[in-house]
Protein backbone atom coordinates (compact mmCIF):
# COMPACT_ATOMS: atom_id res chain seq x y z
CA UNK A 1 0.00 0.00 0.00
CA UNK A 2 1.64 3.19 -1.06
CA UNK A 3 1.50 6.17 1.22
CA UNK A 4 -1.28 8.49 0.22
CA UNK A 5 -0.05 11.65 -1.34
CA UNK A 6 -0.25 14.52 1.05
CA UNK A 7 -2.77 16.80 -0.44
CA UNK A 8 -2.88 20.48 0.20
CA UNK A 9 -5.84 22.08 1.96
CA UNK A 10 -8.75 19.91 0.88
CA UNK A 11 -10.97 22.84 0.28
CA UNK A 12 -8.81 23.73 -2.63
CA UNK A 13 -6.16 26.34 -3.11
CA UNK A 14 -6.46 29.64 -1.30
CA UNK A 15 -7.63 32.12 -3.90
CA UNK A 16 -7.04 35.81 -3.85
CA UNK A 17 -10.29 37.68 -4.61
CA UNK A 18 -9.80 39.51 -7.89
CA UNK A 19 -7.11 40.65 -10.27
CA UNK A 20 -3.99 42.68 -9.70
CA UNK A 21 -3.80 44.84 -6.65
CA UNK A 22 -6.08 42.55 -4.65
CA UNK A 23 -5.15 42.13 -1.04
CA UNK A 24 -3.65 38.66 -0.97
CA UNK A 25 -3.85 38.38 2.78
CA UNK A 26 -7.64 38.21 2.87
CA UNK A 27 -7.83 35.14 0.68
CA UNK A 28 -5.25 33.32 2.72
CA UNK A 29 -6.73 34.12 6.14
CA UNK A 30 -10.17 33.05 5.02
CA UNK A 31 -8.91 29.58 4.22
CA UNK A 32 -11.20 27.29 6.20
CA UNK A 33 -8.64 24.49 6.47
CA UNK A 34 -6.49 26.79 8.59
CA UNK A 35 -3.39 26.95 6.41
CA UNK A 36 -0.81 29.37 7.81
CA UNK A 37 -0.98 32.96 6.67
CA UNK A 38 1.76 34.03 4.34
CA UNK A 39 4.59 36.06 5.75
CA UNK A 40 5.16 39.62 4.65
CA UNK A 41 8.30 38.55 2.82
CA UNK A 42 6.42 35.87 0.96
CA UNK A 43 3.71 38.30 0.00
CA UNK A 44 6.24 40.77 -1.28
CA UNK A 45 7.81 38.05 -3.38
CA UNK A 46 4.42 37.12 -4.73
CA UNK A 47 3.53 40.68 -5.62
CA UNK A 48 6.85 41.06 -7.32
CA UNK A 49 6.21 37.97 -9.39
CA UNK A 50 2.78 39.20 -10.33
CA UNK A 51 4.30 42.36 -11.74
CA UNK A 52 6.64 40.29 -13.85
CA UNK A 53 3.80 38.16 -15.09
CA UNK A 54 2.14 41.21 -16.59
CA UNK A 55 5.01 41.71 -19.03
CA UNK A 56 5.13 38.81 -21.48
CA UNK A 57 2.76 38.89 -24.44
CA UNK A 58 3.91 35.68 -25.99
CA UNK A 59 3.12 32.25 -24.62
CA UNK A 60 6.61 30.81 -24.59
CA UNK A 61 8.03 33.75 -22.70
CA UNK A 62 5.11 33.63 -20.30
CA UNK A 63 5.69 29.96 -19.51
CA UNK A 64 9.31 30.61 -18.76
CA UNK A 65 8.41 33.51 -16.51
CA UNK A 66 5.93 31.36 -14.59
CA UNK A 67 8.40 28.51 -14.12
CA UNK A 68 11.08 30.89 -12.95
CA UNK A 69 8.66 32.58 -10.57
CA UNK A 70 7.64 29.23 -9.05
CA UNK A 71 11.25 28.21 -8.46
CA UNK A 72 12.02 31.55 -6.91
CA UNK A 73 9.03 31.84 -4.63
CA UNK A 74 9.13 28.21 -3.47
CA UNK A 75 12.90 27.86 -3.49
CA UNK A 76 12.75 24.82 -5.74
CA UNK A 77 15.13 23.37 -8.30
CA UNK A 78 12.77 23.01 -11.22
CA UNK A 79 9.28 23.95 -12.34
CA UNK A 80 7.24 23.28 -15.45
CA UNK A 81 3.93 24.48 -16.75
CA UNK A 82 1.69 21.90 -18.36
CA UNK A 83 -1.07 23.34 -20.52
CA UNK A 84 -4.50 21.86 -20.97
CA UNK A 85 -5.57 20.67 -24.39
CA UNK A 86 -9.25 20.31 -23.60
CA UNK A 87 -10.19 18.84 -26.96
CA UNK A 88 -7.67 16.01 -26.64
CA UNK A 89 -8.20 15.57 -22.90
CA UNK A 90 -4.48 15.93 -22.35
CA UNK A 91 -1.90 18.10 -20.68
CA UNK A 92 1.12 19.03 -22.76
CA UNK A 93 4.56 20.34 -21.97
CA UNK A 94 6.97 21.91 -24.39
CA UNK A 95 10.42 20.61 -23.50
CA UNK A 96 12.41 22.16 -26.30
CA UNK A 97 11.67 23.95 -29.52
CA UNK A 98 12.82 21.14 -31.77
CA UNK A 99 11.06 18.25 -30.05
CA UNK A 100 7.35 17.53 -30.01
CA UNK A 101 5.75 18.36 -26.67
CA UNK A 102 5.24 15.71 -24.00
CA UNK A 103 1.62 14.70 -23.57
CA UNK A 104 -0.15 13.19 -20.58
CA UNK A 105 -3.83 12.22 -20.51
CA UNK A 106 -5.92 13.82 -17.82
CA UNK A 107 -5.99 11.59 -14.77
CA UNK A 108 -2.64 10.01 -15.55
CA UNK A 109 0.53 10.68 -13.60
CA UNK A 110 0.89 13.33 -10.94
CA UNK A 111 0.02 16.26 -13.17
CA UNK A 112 -2.92 14.35 -14.64
CA UNK A 113 -4.20 13.56 -11.16
CA UNK A 114 -3.88 17.18 -10.13
CA UNK A 115 -5.77 18.31 -13.23
CA UNK A 116 -8.51 15.75 -12.66
CA UNK A 117 -9.09 16.73 -9.05
CA UNK A 118 -8.37 20.43 -9.59
CA UNK A 119 -6.61 20.38 -6.23
CA UNK A 120 -2.96 20.79 -5.24
CA UNK A 121 -1.09 17.49 -5.10
CA UNK A 122 1.85 17.38 -2.72
CA UNK A 123 4.05 14.30 -3.05
CA UNK A 124 7.02 14.25 -0.62
CA UNK A 125 8.56 11.11 -2.13
CA UNK A 126 7.78 10.74 -5.80
CA UNK A 127 9.47 7.40 -6.36
CA UNK A 128 7.20 5.94 -3.70
CA UNK A 129 4.11 7.09 -5.55
CA UNK A 130 2.82 4.67 -8.24
CA UNK A 131 1.48 7.55 -10.32
CA UNK A 132 4.98 8.99 -10.73
CA UNK A 133 6.60 8.21 -14.08
CA UNK A 134 10.41 7.89 -13.74
CA UNK A 135 10.93 7.86 -17.50
CA UNK A 136 11.36 11.61 -17.65
CA UNK A 137 14.06 11.51 -14.97
CA UNK A 138 15.90 8.83 -16.89
CA UNK A 139 15.72 10.86 -20.07
CA UNK A 140 16.79 14.13 -18.53
CA UNK A 141 19.25 12.95 -15.85
CA UNK A 142 17.33 14.85 -13.20
CA UNK A 143 16.31 13.04 -10.00
CA UNK A 144 12.90 14.03 -8.69
CA UNK A 145 12.60 13.86 -4.93
CA UNK A 146 9.42 15.72 -4.10
CA UNK A 147 6.84 17.47 -6.19
CA UNK A 148 4.04 19.95 -5.77
CA UNK A 149 1.48 20.09 -8.55
CA UNK A 150 -0.84 23.07 -8.54
CA UNK A 151 -3.92 23.46 -10.72
CA UNK A 152 -3.97 26.62 -12.79
CA UNK A 153 -7.53 27.93 -12.62
CA UNK A 154 -8.34 31.20 -14.31
CA UNK A 155 -10.77 33.93 -13.26
CA UNK A 156 -13.67 31.92 -14.64
CA UNK A 157 -12.56 28.88 -12.66
CA UNK A 158 -11.62 27.06 -15.85
CA UNK A 159 -8.61 24.75 -15.78
CA UNK A 160 -5.82 26.25 -17.88
CA UNK A 161 -3.12 23.72 -16.93
CA UNK A 162 -0.94 22.45 -14.09
CA UNK A 163 2.12 24.07 -12.54
CA UNK A 164 4.47 21.40 -11.27
CA UNK A 165 7.30 22.39 -8.95
CA UNK A 166 10.07 19.89 -8.14
CA UNK A 167 12.65 19.46 -5.41
CA UNK A 168 12.26 22.18 -2.85
CA UNK A 169 15.77 22.74 -1.66
CA UNK A 170 14.97 22.62 2.05
CA UNK A 171 13.04 19.35 1.87
CA UNK A 172 9.47 18.25 1.07
CA UNK A 173 6.85 20.92 0.43
CA UNK A 174 4.82 21.73 3.52
CA UNK A 175 1.42 23.28 3.93
CA UNK A 176 2.92 26.76 3.96
CA UNK A 177 4.44 26.12 0.58
CA UNK A 178 1.21 24.68 -0.68
CA UNK A 179 -0.63 27.84 0.36
CA UNK A 180 1.99 30.06 -1.24
CA UNK A 181 2.09 27.89 -4.32
CA UNK A 182 -1.68 28.09 -4.64
CA UNK A 183 -1.60 31.88 -4.49
CA UNK A 184 1.13 31.93 -7.11
CA UNK A 185 -0.77 29.46 -9.29
CA UNK A 186 -3.81 31.71 -9.29
CA UNK A 187 -1.77 34.65 -10.54
CA UNK A 188 -0.07 32.49 -13.14
CA UNK A 189 -3.37 31.12 -14.41
CA UNK A 190 -4.75 34.58 -15.05
CA UNK A 191 -1.58 35.71 -16.77
CA UNK A 192 -1.53 32.61 -18.98
CA UNK A 193 -5.16 33.06 -19.84
CA UNK A 194 -4.48 36.60 -20.91
CA UNK A 195 -1.64 35.61 -23.22
CA UNK A 196 -3.59 32.77 -24.83
CA UNK A 197 -6.55 35.04 -25.40
CA UNK A 198 -4.30 37.64 -27.03
CA UNK A 199 -2.77 35.00 -29.28
CA UNK A 200 -6.16 33.59 -30.31
CA UNK A 201 -7.47 37.01 -31.08
CA UNK A 202 -4.37 37.76 -33.11
CA UNK A 203 -4.86 34.54 -35.07
CA UNK A 204 -8.46 35.48 -35.70
CA UNK A 205 -7.45 38.95 -36.82
CA UNK A 206 -4.89 37.48 -39.21
CA UNK A 207 -7.49 35.12 -40.67
CA UNK A 208 -9.89 38.01 -41.16
CA UNK A 209 -7.19 40.08 -42.81
CA UNK A 210 -6.33 37.21 -45.16
CA UNK A 211 -9.97 36.86 -46.07
CA UNK A 212 -10.19 40.57 -46.75
CA UNK A 213 -7.24 40.34 -49.08
CA UNK A 214 -8.78 37.36 -50.89
CA UNK A 215 -12.00 39.29 -51.39
CA UNK A 216 -10.11 42.30 -52.69
CA UNK A 217 -8.34 40.04 -55.15
CA UNK A 218 -11.61 38.40 -56.18
CA UNK A 219 -13.03 41.85 -56.77
CA UNK A 220 -10.10 42.70 -59.04
CA UNK A 221 -10.54 39.48 -60.96
CA UNK A 222 -14.22 40.21 -61.46
CA UNK A 223 -13.61 43.81 -62.52
CA UNK A 224 -11.10 42.52 -65.06
CA UNK A 225 -13.87 40.54 -66.78
CA UNK A 226 -15.76 43.75 -67.48
CA UNK A 227 -14.97 45.98 -70.44
CA UNK A 228 -12.00 48.20 -69.62
CA UNK A 229 -13.02 50.68 -72.28
CA UNK A 230 -16.18 51.04 -74.31
CA UNK A 231 -15.83 49.72 -77.86
CA UNK A 232 -15.49 52.29 -80.60
CA UNK A 233 -18.41 51.95 -82.97
CA UNK A 234 -18.96 54.89 -85.33
CA UNK A 235 -22.47 56.23 -85.07
CA UNK A 236 -23.05 54.72 -81.65
CA UNK A 237 -22.48 55.82 -78.06
CA UNK A 238 -22.46 53.37 -75.19
CA UNK A 239 -21.83 53.08 -71.48
CA UNK A 240 -21.82 50.28 -68.90
CA UNK A 241 -21.36 50.29 -65.16
CA UNK A 242 -21.26 47.68 -62.43
CA UNK A 243 -21.39 48.61 -58.76
CA UNK A 244 -21.47 45.59 -56.49
CA UNK A 245 -23.11 45.81 -53.08
CA UNK A 246 -20.13 43.97 -51.58
CA UNK A 247 -16.63 43.40 -52.87
CA UNK A 248 -17.82 40.93 -55.45
CA UNK A 249 -21.23 40.91 -57.01
CA UNK A 250 -23.72 38.70 -58.80
CA UNK A 251 -24.16 41.04 -61.77
CA UNK A 252 -22.16 41.39 -64.93
CA UNK A 253 -22.39 43.21 -68.23
CA UNK A 254 -20.61 43.32 -71.55
CA UNK A 255 -20.30 45.54 -74.58
CA UNK A 256 -17.90 44.06 -77.08
CA UNK A 257 -17.35 43.81 -80.80
CA UNK A 258 -17.47 40.25 -82.09
CA UNK A 259 -15.13 38.87 -84.77
CA UNK A 260 -18.09 39.12 -87.14
CA UNK A 261 -18.32 42.89 -86.56
CA UNK A 262 -21.46 42.83 -84.45
CA UNK A 263 -21.81 44.41 -81.04
CA UNK A 264 -22.49 42.00 -78.21
CA UNK A 265 -24.71 43.55 -75.54
CA UNK A 266 -25.16 41.73 -72.24
CA UNK A 267 -26.65 42.41 -68.84
CA UNK A 268 -26.75 39.51 -66.36
CA UNK A 269 -27.78 39.10 -62.75
CA UNK A 270 -27.27 35.93 -60.71
CA UNK A 271 -29.49 35.24 -57.69
CA UNK A 272 -28.09 36.83 -54.57
CA UNK A 273 -24.96 38.89 -54.32
CA UNK A 274 -21.48 38.27 -52.94
CA UNK A 275 -19.11 35.49 -53.90
CA UNK A 276 -21.21 32.52 -55.06
CA UNK A 277 -23.28 34.41 -57.62
CA UNK A 278 -20.15 36.24 -58.77
CA UNK A 279 -18.74 32.85 -59.73
CA UNK A 280 -21.94 31.85 -61.53
CA UNK A 281 -22.19 35.03 -63.48
CA UNK A 282 -18.51 35.01 -64.45
CA UNK A 283 -18.92 31.44 -65.66
CA UNK A 284 -21.90 32.42 -67.81
CA UNK A 285 -20.03 35.40 -69.17
CA UNK A 286 -17.03 33.26 -70.12
CA UNK A 287 -19.23 30.73 -71.92
CA UNK A 288 -20.92 33.51 -73.83
CA UNK A 289 -17.67 35.13 -74.90
CA UNK A 290 -16.39 31.79 -76.12
CA UNK A 291 -19.60 31.17 -78.06
CA UNK A 292 -19.25 34.58 -79.74
CA UNK A 293 -15.62 33.94 -80.63
CA UNK A 294 -16.65 30.70 -82.25
CA UNK A 295 -19.27 32.57 -84.25
CA UNK A 296 -22.22 30.71 -82.77
CA UNK A 297 -25.65 32.07 -83.66
CA UNK A 298 -27.39 33.92 -80.86
CA UNK A 299 -30.14 31.33 -80.36
CA UNK A 300 -27.71 28.43 -80.21
CA UNK A 301 -25.40 30.20 -77.76
CA UNK A 302 -28.32 31.15 -75.54
CA UNK A 303 -29.83 27.66 -75.47
CA UNK A 304 -26.54 25.91 -74.85
CA UNK A 305 -25.57 28.27 -72.06
CA UNK A 306 -29.00 28.00 -70.48
CA UNK A 307 -28.90 24.23 -70.52
CA UNK A 308 -25.34 24.15 -69.18
CA UNK A 309 -26.33 26.42 -66.30
CA UNK A 310 -29.40 24.27 -65.64
CA UNK A 311 -27.03 21.37 -65.08
CA UNK A 312 -24.40 23.11 -63.01
CA UNK A 313 -26.09 25.76 -60.90
CA UNK A 314 -27.08 24.38 -57.53
CA UNK A 315 -30.44 24.29 -55.94
CA UNK A 316 -32.83 26.41 -58.00
CA UNK A 317 -30.34 29.20 -58.60
CA UNK A 318 -30.42 30.99 -61.90
CA UNK A 319 -28.93 33.89 -63.82
CA UNK A 320 -31.21 36.39 -65.46
CA UNK A 321 -29.51 37.60 -68.61
CA UNK A 322 -30.31 39.78 -71.58
CA UNK A 323 -28.04 38.86 -74.49
CA UNK A 324 -28.19 40.73 -77.73
CA UNK A 325 -26.31 41.22 -80.98
CA UNK A 326 -26.47 44.54 -82.76
CA UNK A 327 -25.82 44.68 -86.47
CA UNK A 328 -24.47 48.21 -86.93
CA UNK A 329 -25.15 48.11 -90.65
CA UNK A 330 -28.88 47.63 -90.20
CA UNK A 331 -29.17 49.20 -86.72
CA UNK A 332 -31.15 46.15 -85.66
CA UNK A 333 -30.62 44.53 -82.27
CA UNK A 334 -31.66 40.90 -81.84
CA UNK A 335 -32.07 40.16 -78.18
CA UNK A 336 -32.86 37.07 -76.15
CA UNK A 337 -33.56 37.56 -72.51
CA UNK A 338 -33.72 34.83 -69.89
CA UNK A 339 -35.74 36.45 -67.15
CA UNK A 340 -33.99 39.83 -67.43
CA UNK A 341 -36.45 42.64 -67.73
CA UNK A 342 -37.80 45.16 -68.33
CA UNK A 343 -35.96 45.98 -71.54
CA UNK A 344 -36.40 49.62 -72.42
CA UNK A 345 -36.26 51.01 -75.95
CA UNK A 346 -36.47 54.81 -76.02
CA UNK A 347 -37.83 56.15 -79.29
CA UNK A 348 -36.41 59.60 -80.03
CA UNK A 349 -39.11 60.43 -82.58
CA UNK A 350 -41.99 59.70 -80.19
CA UNK A 351 -40.13 60.76 -77.02
CA UNK A 352 -41.35 57.68 -75.22
CA UNK A 353 -40.30 54.17 -74.26
CA UNK A 354 -41.32 50.68 -75.35
CA UNK A 355 -41.10 48.26 -72.47
CA UNK A 356 -40.34 44.64 -73.30
CA UNK A 357 -40.44 41.64 -71.03
CA UNK A 358 -37.98 38.75 -71.10
CA UNK A 359 -38.34 36.28 -73.97
CA UNK A 360 -37.48 33.28 -71.83
CA UNK A 361 -37.42 32.23 -68.19
CA UNK A 362 -34.32 32.90 -66.04
CA UNK A 363 -31.28 31.07 -67.40
CA UNK A 364 -30.46 27.84 -65.66
CA UNK A 365 -33.90 27.45 -64.10
CA UNK A 366 -34.70 24.58 -66.46
CA UNK A 367 -33.52 23.21 -69.80
CA UNK A 368 -35.06 24.92 -72.81
CA UNK A 369 -37.38 22.73 -74.80
CA UNK A 370 -38.87 25.44 -76.95
CA UNK A 371 -37.02 28.74 -77.36
CA UNK A 372 -39.28 31.72 -77.98
CA UNK A 373 -38.16 34.04 -80.76
CA UNK A 374 -35.74 36.88 -80.12
CA UNK A 375 -36.84 40.47 -79.73
CA UNK A 376 -35.94 42.50 -82.78
CA UNK A 377 -35.44 46.16 -82.00
CA UNK A 378 -34.79 48.61 -84.81
CA UNK A 379 -32.90 51.70 -83.68
CA UNK A 380 -33.77 54.98 -85.30
CA UNK A 381 -31.30 57.87 -84.90
CA UNK A 382 -31.37 59.13 -81.31
CA UNK A 383 -32.91 55.91 -79.96
CA UNK A 384 -31.64 54.27 -76.76
CA UNK A 385 -31.46 50.75 -75.38
CA UNK A 386 -31.59 50.82 -71.60
CA UNK A 387 -30.85 47.66 -69.61
CA UNK A 388 -30.89 47.99 -65.84
CA UNK A 389 -30.50 45.32 -63.15
CA UNK A 390 -33.18 45.10 -60.48
CA UNK A 391 -30.84 46.72 -57.97
CA UNK A 392 -31.94 49.98 -59.57
CA UNK A 393 -35.70 49.42 -59.82
CA UNK A 394 -35.88 47.82 -56.40
CA UNK A 395 -33.72 50.25 -54.46
CA UNK A 396 -35.69 51.04 -51.34
CA UNK A 397 -36.15 54.63 -50.32
CA UNK A 398 -38.11 56.54 -47.72
CA UNK A 399 -41.18 54.77 -46.37
CA UNK A 400 -40.40 51.48 -48.12
CA UNK A 401 -41.13 52.97 -51.55
CA UNK A 402 -39.11 51.55 -54.44
CA UNK A 403 -37.19 53.58 -57.01
CA UNK A 404 -39.35 52.02 -59.71
CA UNK A 405 -39.92 52.39 -63.39
CA UNK A 406 -41.40 55.88 -63.39
CA UNK A 407 -38.29 57.51 -61.95
CA UNK A 408 -36.16 55.77 -64.57
CA UNK A 409 -38.44 57.06 -67.33
CA UNK A 410 -38.25 60.57 -65.94
CA UNK A 411 -34.46 60.47 -66.06
CA UNK A 412 -34.53 59.16 -69.61
CA UNK A 413 -36.81 62.00 -70.65
CA UNK A 414 -34.39 64.43 -69.04
CA UNK A 415 -31.10 63.06 -70.37
CA UNK A 416 -31.91 61.33 -73.64
CA UNK A 417 -30.29 64.12 -75.60
CA UNK A 418 -26.89 63.73 -73.96
CA UNK A 419 -24.03 61.27 -73.72
CA UNK A 420 -24.55 57.70 -72.48
CA UNK A 421 -22.02 58.23 -69.70
CA UNK A 422 -23.95 61.26 -68.51
CA UNK A 423 -27.24 59.35 -68.39
CA UNK A 424 -25.47 56.58 -66.52
CA UNK A 425 -24.10 59.03 -63.97
CA UNK A 426 -27.50 60.62 -63.55
CA UNK A 427 -29.16 57.26 -62.94
CA UNK A 428 -26.60 56.21 -60.33
CA UNK A 429 -26.76 59.55 -58.59
CA UNK A 430 -30.55 59.47 -58.51
CA UNK A 431 -30.57 55.98 -57.02
CA UNK A 432 -28.04 57.00 -54.38
CA UNK A 433 -30.03 60.10 -53.48
CA UNK A 434 -33.22 58.08 -53.31
CA UNK A 435 -31.64 55.57 -50.97
CA UNK A 436 -30.80 58.38 -48.57
CA UNK A 437 -28.09 57.34 -46.20
CA UNK A 438 -28.94 53.65 -46.51
CA UNK A 439 -26.23 51.26 -47.67
CA UNK A 440 -26.59 49.77 -51.13
CA UNK A 441 -28.29 46.45 -50.62
CA UNK A 442 -28.16 44.92 -54.09
CA UNK A 443 -25.72 45.00 -56.98
CA UNK A 444 -26.38 47.76 -59.49
CA UNK A 445 -25.59 47.30 -63.16
CA UNK A 446 -26.54 49.26 -66.24
CA UNK A 447 -25.97 49.05 -69.98
CA UNK A 448 -26.83 52.03 -72.17
CA UNK A 449 -26.60 52.04 -75.95
CA UNK A 450 -27.55 54.95 -78.18
CA UNK A 451 -27.70 55.32 -81.90
CA UNK A 452 -26.36 58.84 -82.45
CA UNK A 453 -28.75 61.20 -84.16
Amino acid sequence: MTPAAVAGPDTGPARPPDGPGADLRHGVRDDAAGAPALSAAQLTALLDVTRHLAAPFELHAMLQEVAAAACGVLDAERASVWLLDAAAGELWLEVSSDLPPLRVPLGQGLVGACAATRAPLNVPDCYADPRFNPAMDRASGFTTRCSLSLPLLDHADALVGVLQVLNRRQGPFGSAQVALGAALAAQCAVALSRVRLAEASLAARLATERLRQELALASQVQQATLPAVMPELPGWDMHGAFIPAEQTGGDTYDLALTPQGQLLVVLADATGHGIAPALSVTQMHAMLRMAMRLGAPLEQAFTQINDQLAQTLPDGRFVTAAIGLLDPATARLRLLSGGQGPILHWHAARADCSVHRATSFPMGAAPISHLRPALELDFAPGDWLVLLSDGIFEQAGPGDELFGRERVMALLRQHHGGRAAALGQALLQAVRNFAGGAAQDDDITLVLLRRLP
Partner: protein
Amino acid sequence: MDMQIEQRDGGITVVRLKGRLDIAGADAIGLRFTSATASAAQPAVVDLAGVEFIASMGLRLLISSARALGAKGRRMALFGAQPLVQAVFDDAALDQLMPVCTTEAQAVAAVTG
Protein backbone atom coordinates in the same frame (compact mmCIF):
# COMPACT_ATOMS: atom_id res chain seq x y z
CA MET B 1 -43.45 36.07 -43.91
CA ASP B 2 -46.40 33.82 -43.04
CA MET B 3 -47.30 30.53 -44.56
CA GLN B 4 -50.46 28.45 -44.26
CA ILE B 5 -50.93 25.01 -45.69
CA GLU B 6 -54.26 23.42 -46.58
CA GLN B 7 -55.26 20.21 -48.28
CA ARG B 8 -57.86 20.21 -51.00
CA ASP B 9 -59.97 17.30 -52.09
CA GLY B 10 -58.21 15.19 -54.64
CA GLY B 11 -54.83 15.44 -52.95
CA ILE B 12 -53.81 18.99 -53.81
CA THR B 13 -51.71 21.13 -51.52
CA VAL B 14 -52.66 24.77 -51.18
CA VAL B 15 -49.96 27.06 -49.78
CA ARG B 16 -51.06 30.57 -48.81
CA LEU B 17 -48.27 33.11 -48.40
CA LYS B 18 -48.44 36.48 -46.70
CA GLY B 19 -45.72 39.10 -46.45
CA ARG B 20 -42.60 40.09 -48.35
CA LEU B 21 -40.81 37.43 -50.36
CA ASP B 22 -37.38 39.08 -50.15
CA ILE B 23 -34.17 37.48 -48.87
CA ALA B 24 -35.37 37.46 -45.26
CA GLY B 25 -38.83 36.24 -46.19
CA ALA B 26 -37.50 33.50 -48.43
CA ASP B 27 -35.13 32.40 -45.69
CA ALA B 28 -37.88 32.37 -43.11
CA ILE B 29 -40.15 30.00 -45.00
CA GLY B 30 -37.68 28.25 -47.33
CA LEU B 31 -37.51 24.83 -45.73
CA ARG B 32 -41.19 24.69 -44.84
CA PHE B 33 -42.22 25.77 -48.31
CA THR B 34 -40.04 23.17 -49.97
CA SER B 35 -41.30 20.44 -47.69
CA ALA B 36 -44.93 21.45 -48.20
CA THR B 37 -44.55 21.43 -51.96
CA ALA B 38 -41.63 19.44 -53.34
CA SER B 39 -41.42 16.86 -50.60
CA ALA B 40 -45.17 16.29 -50.45
CA ALA B 41 -45.03 15.03 -54.06
CA GLN B 42 -48.54 16.02 -54.92
CA PRO B 43 -49.90 18.84 -57.11
CA ALA B 44 -49.51 22.22 -55.44
CA VAL B 45 -51.03 25.65 -55.89
CA VAL B 46 -49.59 28.77 -54.28
CA ASP B 47 -51.83 31.65 -53.20
CA LEU B 48 -49.87 34.89 -53.56
CA ALA B 49 -52.67 37.32 -52.76
CA GLY B 50 -50.95 38.28 -49.52
CA VAL B 51 -47.48 38.78 -50.99
CA GLU B 52 -46.61 42.46 -51.38
CA PHE B 53 -43.12 42.13 -52.79
CA ILE B 54 -40.91 39.54 -54.43
CA ALA B 55 -37.19 39.66 -55.23
CA SER B 56 -34.86 37.20 -56.90
CA MET B 57 -34.43 35.00 -53.82
CA GLY B 58 -38.20 34.66 -53.61
CA LEU B 59 -38.32 33.74 -57.29
CA ARG B 60 -35.59 31.23 -56.67
CA LEU B 61 -37.61 29.55 -53.94
CA LEU B 62 -40.63 29.24 -56.26
CA ILE B 63 -38.53 28.02 -59.16
CA SER B 64 -36.53 25.47 -57.19
CA SER B 65 -39.63 24.05 -55.51
CA ALA B 66 -41.49 23.85 -58.82
CA ARG B 67 -38.52 22.15 -60.37
CA ALA B 68 -38.14 19.64 -57.56
CA LEU B 69 -41.86 18.91 -57.70
CA GLY B 70 -41.63 18.57 -61.47
CA ALA B 71 -38.94 15.95 -61.04
CA LYS B 72 -41.55 13.89 -59.20
CA GLY B 73 -43.99 14.26 -62.03
CA ARG B 74 -46.21 16.86 -60.35
CA ARG B 75 -46.95 20.46 -61.22
CA MET B 76 -47.01 23.67 -59.22
CA ALA B 77 -49.07 26.73 -60.15
CA LEU B 78 -49.18 30.25 -58.76
CA PHE B 79 -52.27 32.42 -58.49
CA GLY B 80 -53.59 35.71 -57.19
CA ALA B 81 -50.41 37.77 -57.54
CA GLN B 82 -50.67 41.48 -56.72
CA PRO B 83 -49.81 43.86 -59.63
CA LEU B 84 -46.27 44.58 -58.43
CA VAL B 85 -45.51 40.88 -58.03
CA GLN B 86 -47.23 40.03 -61.32
CA ALA B 87 -45.00 42.60 -63.04
CA VAL B 88 -41.92 40.81 -61.73
CA PHE B 89 -43.31 37.50 -63.01
CA ASP B 90 -44.00 39.07 -66.41
CA ASP B 91 -40.55 40.63 -66.66
CA ALA B 92 -38.97 37.29 -65.82
CA ALA B 93 -41.22 35.27 -68.17
CA LEU B 94 -41.96 33.02 -65.23
CA ASP B 95 -45.07 31.68 -66.95
CA GLN B 96 -42.76 29.72 -69.21
CA LEU B 97 -41.72 27.70 -66.17
CA MET B 98 -45.00 27.24 -64.34
CA PRO B 99 -48.63 28.33 -64.73
CA VAL B 100 -49.32 31.81 -63.35
CA CYS B 101 -53.08 32.11 -62.92
CA THR B 102 -55.55 34.62 -61.56
CA THR B 103 -57.86 32.42 -59.51
CA GLU B 104 -57.46 29.34 -57.34
CA ALA B 105 -59.82 27.40 -59.59
CA GLN B 106 -57.66 28.13 -62.63
CA ALA B 107 -54.52 27.12 -60.74
CA VAL B 108 -56.09 23.85 -59.61
CA ALA B 109 -57.14 23.10 -63.17
CA ALA B 110 -53.63 23.85 -64.36
CA VAL B 111 -52.01 21.34 -62.05
CA THR B 112 -54.53 18.58 -62.41
CA GLY B 113 -55.50 18.90 -66.05
